[in-house]
């Protein structure tokens, strides 16, 4: 029988939507998307982007909201219980434990990255990175991370302190609960994030040509770099896979967090409109705001060729090396203030995602073990605090990258494929469809029934096979690994195995306890 007594609930629908949008809007919206668009055909990239938005992103959103609200009816706020409800098989809960594993592992390293954004927002106000060059800014960042020394940082302790501060803020919000903690954070952080992003975008658009002696280095050329279409690239399957990957990662699906949030809905609350609103809010942050900040300003300051090089260096290179150089330059008036806004908006994007990553395990401990929230949050905090030490001190040895690949990249696709098959095929497409439309403020167009049943799982399978062959197998076999990093990579794998084993054990224990109670 469904039970729905004494569970926390969201205060308002807008609060819930902002919280789920906060979960989706992350660093990737402002750093990953513009790089992907520029590297994969510019404006032409938007063709596969929108197609996958419709056939992969939105369907997965509805599937996760549907599984989550359905599980919530049975007092399950995390994937093990939810999968157990939709698939009456003793293995279901263990498949669900992947939803705990992924969110927890990502939380461990994401908290540390998030703390860099907080740190850099403070450094902006202090004018600490003013007048840096590409070379000295790289040294600034690496010395902050404890990799080498610079005039600014001689040890890792400032970064460590900020990691602890970020960690404390995260767990304090989780401790306050769904409505008073997570929802309140979303209602403050999300409007501020959008406000800062709009101010920054307007400032950058009006920058024009910062150095009139180099007219080709302009914001207009930056927009051209992202938006001018290169149709010849559309024939390349890699572009389509890049678009599918971008849609997949940007929405934060496949990690068990949306399920956890949706479980606090009432059985007759809408999920059709809420899921769509969340996806469109994320696209707004990404396509309109994200694409109007980092790349256009980089082209205006460094030129097209240098920006291509920066983009190929990855999102962190763009966000933590190139952007501080720009904000610290004399050609960017009030750069300290705009730098503060940039890094604080990244911090807001990060923290609204990281609290979401903590919620599945907290909900699991509360719902399946009957722990009070205080104890559940404290338990998770201890485990995360122990594990994050390895990430902080072994960063330069690829410890974080290893965790990010298996949990934050490959694991997401595996989990999304499992949940789609379980919901649309095992639980049944008709029942799933009814569940997703129940209480809806609009009716999901029938074509999505077929998309969710056939198209979405096929795309996920293609992604899984493609990434499996292209990157997972070489990564597993350490083909491109630096020999000096190999012991640390194995350390990261052992840590992840220990977390996975621990989670499987507590899932088993929870169900054994329930069985004993039923017999007793």
């Amino acid at each position, binding site marked *: 029988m469904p039970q729905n007594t004494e569970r926390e609930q969201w205060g308002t*629908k807008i609060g819930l939507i902002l919280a789920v949008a906060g979960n989706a809007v992350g660093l990737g919206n402002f750093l990953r998307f513009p790089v992907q668009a520029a590297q994969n055909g*510019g*404006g032409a990239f938007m063709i596969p982007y929108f197609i996958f938005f419709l056939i992969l992103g939105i369907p997965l959103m509805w599937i996760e909201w549907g599984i989550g609200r359905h599980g919530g009816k049975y007092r399950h706020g995390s994937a093990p219980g939810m999968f157990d409800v939709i698939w009456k098989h003793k293995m279901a809960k263990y498949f669900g434990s992947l939803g705990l594993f992924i969110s927890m592992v990502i939380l461990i390293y994401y908290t540390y990255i998030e703390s860099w954004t907080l740190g850099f927002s403070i450094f902006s106000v202090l004018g600490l990175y003013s007048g840096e060059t590409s070379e000295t800014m790289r040294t600034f960042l690496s010395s902050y991370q404890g990799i080498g020394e610079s005039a600014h940082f001689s040890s890792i302790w400032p970064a460590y302190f900020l990691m602890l501060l970020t960690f404390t803020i995260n767990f304090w919000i989780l401790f306050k609960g769904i409505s008073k903690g997570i929802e309140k954070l979303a209602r403050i952080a999300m409007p501020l994030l959008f406000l800062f992003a709009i101010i920054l975008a307007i400032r950058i658009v009006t920058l024009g040509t910062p150095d009139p002696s180099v007219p080709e280095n302009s914001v207009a050329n930056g927009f051209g770099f992202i*938006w001018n*279409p290169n149709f010849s690239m559309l024939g390349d399957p890699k572009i389509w896979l890049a678009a599918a990957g971008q849609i997949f990662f940007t929405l934060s699906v496949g990690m068990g967090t949306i399920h956890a949030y949706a479980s606090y809905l009432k059985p007759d609350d809408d999920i059709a409109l809420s899921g769509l609103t969340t996806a469109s809010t994320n696209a707004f942050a990404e396509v309109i705001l994200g694409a109007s900040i980092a790349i256009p300003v980089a082209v205006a300051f460094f030129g097209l060729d240098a920006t291509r090089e920066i983009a190929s260096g990855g999102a962190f290179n763009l966000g933590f090396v190139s952007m501080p150089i720009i904000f610290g330059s004399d050609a960017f008036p009030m750069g300290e203030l705009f730098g503060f806004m940039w890094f604080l908006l990244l911090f807001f994007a990060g923290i609204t995602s990281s609290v979401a990553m903590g919620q599945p395990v907290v909900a699991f401990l509360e719902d399946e073990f009957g722990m009070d929230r205080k104890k559940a949050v404290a338990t998770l905090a201890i485990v995360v605090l122990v594990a994050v030490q390895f990430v902080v001190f072994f960063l330069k040895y690829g410890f974080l990258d290893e965790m990010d690949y298996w949990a934050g990249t490959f694991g997401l696709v595996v989990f999304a494929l499992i949940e789609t098959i379980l919901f649309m095929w095992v639980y049944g497409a008709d029942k799933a469809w009814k569940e997703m439309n129940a209480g809806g*403020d609009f009716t999901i167009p029938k074509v999505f029934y077929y998309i969710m049943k056939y198209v979405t799982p096929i795309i996920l399978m293609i992604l899984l096979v493609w990434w499996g062959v292209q990157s997972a197998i070489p990564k597993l076999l350490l083909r491109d690994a630096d020999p000096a990093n190999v012991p640390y990579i194995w350390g990261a794998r052992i840590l992840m195995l220990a977390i996975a084993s621990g989670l499987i054990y507590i899932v088993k224990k929870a169900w054994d306890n329930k069985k004993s109670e039923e017999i007793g």
Partner: protein
Amino acid sequence: MGLTTEGIIFLAFAWGSILVLTTYCFYKVIKSERRDKKRDSG
């Protein structure tokens, strides 16, 4: 180089689609929240 005509078309298409969708969604959400509040208070 700047933005070519094709670039402007793609930018306008992408921004326009997302703006319309987001505005429509939030309009519906706010409308339904008001309706629910009215129902609860009535």
